[in-house]
Each structure stands twice: as structure tokens, then as C-alpha cells.
């Protein structure tokens, strides 16, 4: 399923060649539109504040590496990194298990009750997440669930569940029933079927879920800000909003952008490493025929 597929098929008509060049312009334009802002954040982080106001778009003079140190200290990124990683890992662990299991159940258990469950999650997915913030705020407080990264991870996992379940269910449906029946005949329990057959086959989609989940959790800040009040438990996302908010009062854009870069670079690296899996995962989550 790569471009290679259709390469040896057609001779290119003249129209196609012209099309290609025109569209190439669009593509390049869009690439610049996407990539340039990131590049801009990176090189602006090395400017002094005065340089920035003098001309925001030019390259820096002397690279101000100290901006990174200042941003790191001011926003206390050291401990926040750890908190973010902990949150991401816990959320991921919970998400993968419940999403995979629910996807399997919804895809393969033919049952009126399960069908009802599927409809329920579908409706649940429509509910805008923003409506949950305010009630959850009061609710969490009464249950004393605040300031706990574990509870936060749980909330993330639960809230993300419907979307990922449907993403995966489409794929799991494509797994041949014959395989599962054969396993049942051989005496396998559901647990065995799940862990030994479904999970290994679903690797691409699982990867997809995993990566989207990591990125979503890393960047999420509104719910985190609501739940975590104790400064020692802040995640990177909260620290970032703190930096940009307080940066408003003590203006130093070089430092602010260094902070942005610190939050940005890890996720870009993760994306870069796993981009192949992401693209494969994208393709397999859409009703592949067995």
C-alpha cells in the first residue's frame, strides 16, 4: 500500500504532468505554511527580547542558549517532564487495554446488549469535552481526586475511550471469524484469544492509538489545569501555559519561545521516529478486508 503500487501502471498523459506541477506548487506552499512556524519558534527561541521586538522574523544574531536555561528554571521543566511522562505512561497503559478489549467486544460479540453499548459510546462521543470541565471541576473536588496524576490519567483514558474504540473496532471487524472460531474449537478461552490472536494482529492500529494517545496526553492542558493544583505535580502542558501567562507580565519572548521549544521538541522527535507506523496505522484502521 505505498506509492509504488500504481507506478508501473500508467503512462503519464500531458495533462497529468501539468497537473502535477501546478499541484506541486500548492503542496510546497502548504508545506511552508506548516513547517515555517515551527522553524520560526525554534530560531526565535535563540533571540534576545529586544532583537525580537526589533524584527520578529529575522534570524538571531548571537544564539542565546541561556534562554533555554532560563525557561527551564522559570517554568521548572525538570520536574514537569517527569510528571508528564508519568501521566502519559499511565494513560497509555490503561487506554491500550480497555480500548483493545472494548474494540474486540464491540466488533465480535454479536449481542443486543453489546449493540446497545456501541450506540451508547457513539452518542457519548458526540458530547463536547468542554462541557465536562466545569462539572468535573466541582465533582473532582468533592471526591478529593485532585492533585493526583493517577486520577488524571484515568480521566484521560476514560474520556478518550469512545473515539479510539471506534477507530480500532473497524479494524478488528476485519479479522476473519474463522480464525476465532478455530481457536474456540481448540478450547481457547476469551482471554487467550484476546491476548494471543487479536492483539498481535492489531499491532498497526494499536500503534496508531498509542501514538495519538501519547500526543494527546502530552499536549492536553485544560483538564490538567483543572485537576492539578499542587505545583510539584504539574505536567509540561500546565507549565507551558504558566510560562506563557506569566510571560505576559514579565515580557521576554526569547525565553517564552525557548519554553515552547522545550515542550515541542520531544513530541516532534517521537513523531519523527514513529511516523512510518503512524501512516501504516492510518491505513489499516479503515476496514481492511482481512
Amino acid at each position, binding site marked *: 500500500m505505498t*506509492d509504488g503500487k500504481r507506478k508501473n501502471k500508467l503512462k503519464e498523459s500531458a495533462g497529468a504532468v501539468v497537473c502535477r506541477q501546478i499541484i506541486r506548487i500548492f503542496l510546497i506552499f502548504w508545506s511552508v505554511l506548516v513547517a515555517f512556524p515551527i522553524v520560526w519558534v525554534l530560531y526565535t527561541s535563540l533571540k534576545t527580547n529586544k532583537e525580537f521586538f526589533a524584527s*520578529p522574523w529575522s534570524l538571531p544574531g548571537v544564539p542565546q542558549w541561556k534562554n533555554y536555561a532560563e525557561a527551564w528554571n522559570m517554568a521548572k521543566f525538570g520536574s514537569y517532564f517527569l510528571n508528564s511522562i508519568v501521566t502519559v505512561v499511565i494513560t497509555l497503559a490503561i487506554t491500550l487495554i480497555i480500548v483493545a478489549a472494548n474494540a474486540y467486544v464491540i466488533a465480535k460479540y454479536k449481542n443486543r446488549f453489546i449493540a446497545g453499548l456501541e450506540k451508547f459510546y457513539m452518542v457519548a462521543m*458526540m458530547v463536547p469535552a468542554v462541557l465536562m470541565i466545569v462539572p468535573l471541576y466541582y465533582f473532582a473536588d468533592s471526591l478529593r481526586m485532585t492533585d493526583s496524576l493517577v486520577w488524571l490519567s484515568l480521566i484521560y483514558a*476514560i474520556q478518550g475511550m469512545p473515539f479510539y474504540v471506534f477507530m480500532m473496532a473497524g479494524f478488528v471487524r476485519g479479522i476473519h471469524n474463522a480464525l476465532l472460531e478455530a481457536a474456540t474449537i481448540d478450547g481457547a478461552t476469551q482471554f487467550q484469544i484476546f491476548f494471543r490472536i487479536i492483539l498481535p494482529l492489531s499491532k498497526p492500529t494499536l500503534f496508531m492509538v498509542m501514538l495519538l494517545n501519547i500526543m494527546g496526553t502530552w499536549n492536553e492542558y485544560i483538564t490538567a489545569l483543572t485537576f492539578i493544583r499542587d505545583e510539584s505535580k504539574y505536567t509540561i502542558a500546565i507549565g507551558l501555559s504558566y510560562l506563557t501567562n506569566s510571560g505576559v507580565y514579565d515580557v521576554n519572548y526569547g525565553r517564552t519561545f525557548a519554553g515552547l521549544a522545550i515542550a515541542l521538541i520531544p513530541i516532534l522527535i517521537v513523531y519523527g521516529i514513529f511516523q512510518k507506523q503512524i501512516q501504516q496505522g492510518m*491505513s489499516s484502521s479503515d476496514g481492511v478486508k482481512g
Partner: protein
Amino acid sequence: MSRKKNKWLRQPPDRSKIIFFLCFCLPPLLLYLLFGVYPILNSVYVSLFEWSGFDKLTSDAFVGLGNYFEVITEEEFLCAIRNDFIIILGKEIIIIALTVLFAVSLTRLKFRKGEASLYRFVFFIPNVLSVVIISIIWTFVIDPNFGILNPVLRAVGLADLIPASGWTYEHPLGVITFVASWCGVGMFMLIMIAAINGINAEMYESATIDGANEWKQLRYITLPAIREQSKFIVVTILYQSFSSNFTMVQAMLGSSVNSDSVVMGMFVYQNSFDSQWPRVGYSYSAAVIMLVITAAVSLIVNRIMSGRRSVYD
């Protein structure tokens, strides 16, 4: 689960399945009911009161449907509803147009091998960024003094487009729609590419053998897949937008939101969290109305798009 209605059950529920279900599916469901459904029921309940969020909720704060009547006649809320739909419509058009354009181009036209992968890699990057970063970047890009957008427009001779009072004052919804679309195109493009690539290669081969040229193939083979996938994208954008509109408006416009740029989520947030005089009951009534609108629109669109089944089946 009774054994009587056998036509509902294609496989008899054996113990193993029940255990599996109880282990893996019941806890998340319960938690979902707790964290997802209960807060909503609670907000419906509180919306019947006038509450500042601080003191205990007493029964003499009960106002019944008073909050609802006030909200639906509140001009700002009606503007919010209108703005939400304008943004969603804009997003749908821009994202679908760009997604189809890019996806078809990258799969059907011949590019050097590395080039297409490069585009695919780069286009997804906005999905990876947090909304805080995105809002800071774009606020600066469109800034009248420090931004780069206006100089570029001047350089290509489109200076007439530049609004005199700046982009966010004169066209706040346009700005939000564009930035939100900029974020969204990447992921949907990849999904579309996957769908197109999923088409069996043999179909193209036999079409070529039968003498169909490129355009015909595009129309009859590729297009149906695109149409299917577009429906999925339209519905997904709709689901996500009601919520992401709020985060985007909050991040980019913050406190300068007025009736030109308010969205429903923002209205809810402003009246409860961000206010000198918080009115939690009132904001919850707006939230409930938002929920009803969202659900209604989602159901209708889902039905239109795919007949009786949902796009997600």
C-alpha cells in the same frame, strides 16, 4: 441475556465471554458513567438553580427553567450558536477541499518517492502540537505590526485584503476557522490517503486494460472511496468541533471575545469560571442547550450521510 431470543444471538454467550466482558468492559463503562454521564446529569440539575459556585446550593436558589428562558433570549448566546456553525461550516469546506486535493494528488500523481513521503510527514505536524503553541504562533503571524502575513500580502500585491483594524478585530471567525483547519488537514489527509491506497490495485489494472484513461479512473474508481471517507471526515469534524472551537477561541482570543467571536463553549466557560460574578446555574443551562444542539445536529448529519447506519459502523 436470555437464551430464548436466539435470533439476536449468533453465538451463545459462554462463561468465558461473560467473564471477559465483566473484566474489561464493565469497569470502563462504570467509570465512564461516573466521569462522563454523572457530571452531565449534575449540570442539568444545577442548571435549575441560581448558584455562584461558592456557597452551598440551597433550595431557595431554585429557579426552575428561569435560566433556560434567560439564555435563549440572550443575544450573546444566540450569536455564539451562530458563530459555532459558521466556524464548523468553514472548517468542513476547507478541510474537505484540501484533504481531497492533497490525498488524490499524492496518490494518483507521480511524485518522486521521497517527495510524497516528505509531504505526508510534514503535513501531519500541526496535529502534534499543543493548542497553546499554535495560538501563540498564529497570533504573531497575523499581528498587524509584528506579523509576517501582512508584509507577504503586500509583497504579492494583495495589500487590499489587509483589514485596517487588524485580522482579529475585523474577521475573528475567519482567523479561527483558518487556524483550526490548518491544524486539522494533516490527520484527515492521511486517513484519506489510506482509504485510496486501500482500493484494490487490480481494479486500476483492469480499467487500464479496458482503455479507461486517468480521469475516468479517477471518477469511477477513486471517487467512491473518497466519498465514503469524506462522509467519515465530515462527521468526525462535526463531533470534534464543538469542543475544539472553544479551546481555539480561548487560546487565540482569550479575553477579547465579544459577540462577534464568542462560541457556545466559551459562553459556558465565561459565565462560570472566568467571571467576576460567576453564575454556574446559568452557564450550565447554556451547556445543556449546547449539548442538545450538538446531539441533534450530529444525529441529523449522521443520518444524512449514511442512511440508517452510522458512519462509524
